[in-house]
């Protein structure tokens, strides 16, 4: 192959900036001495420009862009609906297994407020009323009524009592390492943890806003500190008795 043939086979890559530095230097040296090859380079450059101008001469029409976006939004909505439908029964199955396991292993008399609750088909809205109910559970309400009543509605995957040390002293967002079933460490100093499957829980606007801005929702209800946090696909509600003698320990 003649030098000019070799050079011309590489002109496209040169114009596109796709040659290795040493190749470029060698080609450009030849071009500086060969008028015919230099003319070929100019022609290749002009063609590249002509292709770009022609190829971009038909912009995406606004109406087409609108239809494409609308089609995507419809696809998003369909995917959301499908996700909701497929997840509807998963928490139920998980809760059934968990609840059966918990109750089979439950040691006789239950401690105050330590009743695991089953899931109802309807999603739970985590609003003030439900948080108050959870506080009531923590304070011993459902345990008096028995598990049957507690199983009626709340979408709890687990509702358990944890030692007070579970809460970080600095009041940081609680770190949920695992779900376990520890005994309460004494009246007036207990903590309960409710773990929800996030797909089964709606957040009230106040909880949602707090999670968005601070990463944690914090409120005191009937002397119980309520912390709501979100991690992965779980919503955690941590209920902790406030020490009545030393409120500054919150």
């Amino acid at each position, binding site marked *: 192959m003649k030098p000019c043939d070799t050079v011309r086979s590489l002109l*496209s890559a040169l114009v596109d900036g796709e040659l290795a530095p040493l190749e470029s230097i060698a080609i450009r040296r030849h071009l500086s001495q060969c008028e015919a090859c230099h003319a070929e380079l100019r*022609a290749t450059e002009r*063609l590249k420009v002509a292709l770009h101008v*022609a190829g971009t001469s038909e912009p995406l029409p606004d109406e087409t862009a609108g239809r*494409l976006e609308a089609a*995507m939004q419809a*696809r998003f909505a369909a995917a959301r609906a499908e*996700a909701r439908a497929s997840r509807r029964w998963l928490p139920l199955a998980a809760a059934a297994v968990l609840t059966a396991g918990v109750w089979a292993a439950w040691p006789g008399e239950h401690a105050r407020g330590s009743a695991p609750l089953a899931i109802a088909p309807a999603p739970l809205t985590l609003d003030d009323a439900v948080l108050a109910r959870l506080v009531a559970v923590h304070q011993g309400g459902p345990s008096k009524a028995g598990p049957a009543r507690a199983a009626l509605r709340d979408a709890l995957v687990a509702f358990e009592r944890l030692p007070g040390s579970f809460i970080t002293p600095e009041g940081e967002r609680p770190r949920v390492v695992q779900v376990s079933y520890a005994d309460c460490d004494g009246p007036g100093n207990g903590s309960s943890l409710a773990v929800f499957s*996030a797909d089964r829980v709606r957040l009230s606007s106040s909880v949602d806003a707090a999670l968005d801005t601070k990463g944690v929702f914090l409120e005191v209800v009937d002397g119980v500190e309520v912390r709501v946090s979100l991690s992965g696909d779980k919503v955690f509600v941590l209920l902790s008795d406030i020490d009545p003698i030393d409120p500054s320990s919150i």
Partner: protein
Amino acid sequence: MVWSGARKRAQIEREFMAHVFVHAEGLYRYALRLTGQPQSAEDLVQDALARAFDAFERLRPNTNHRAWVFTILRNAFISTQRRLGREQELEDPTILPDDDAPTALDRLAHAGDGYRHGFEDEVLAALQALSEQQRTAVVLCDVEGMSYEDIAAVMACPVGTVRSRIHHARRRLREVLDAYARGKGYGRLDEAV
């Protein structure tokens, strides 16, 4: 009031719009060069975006979203062509026979009938006469400004093959356009553009 699950989905949707849908205009341009028809191009882009969204959650981190979605579009186009029995239009010609020239020039003869004025119609008609492999390589390079490496990813071939396809595509385009320009009384393409 917001679903926590919906929050996750909303995040996915935002990321899809930011990383994939943002290329809709380039996808449409490319689809137009593949199909030659605005309606077919729109259908192809819509199909590609839907396929991309279905697979979006399974993408590995650091994926080149642009090359990825162009690949999806091209594969969707090729599947359709194969279904319609048009494989021969996809392949590179092993040689560049002169008797192809009349076909390309025939296209050019009608190119100026469109709504555009200037030389764009002729260039686009010449592009349309290339095989899909050469057309894709040169369109992604010259219109979309992709690197050879990205084009190789889209076309699932080595970078050297991309280089060769672009070289042959441009040579072919110049032959066709020079012939057309001479027919119009110009010396060659350079004088017409």
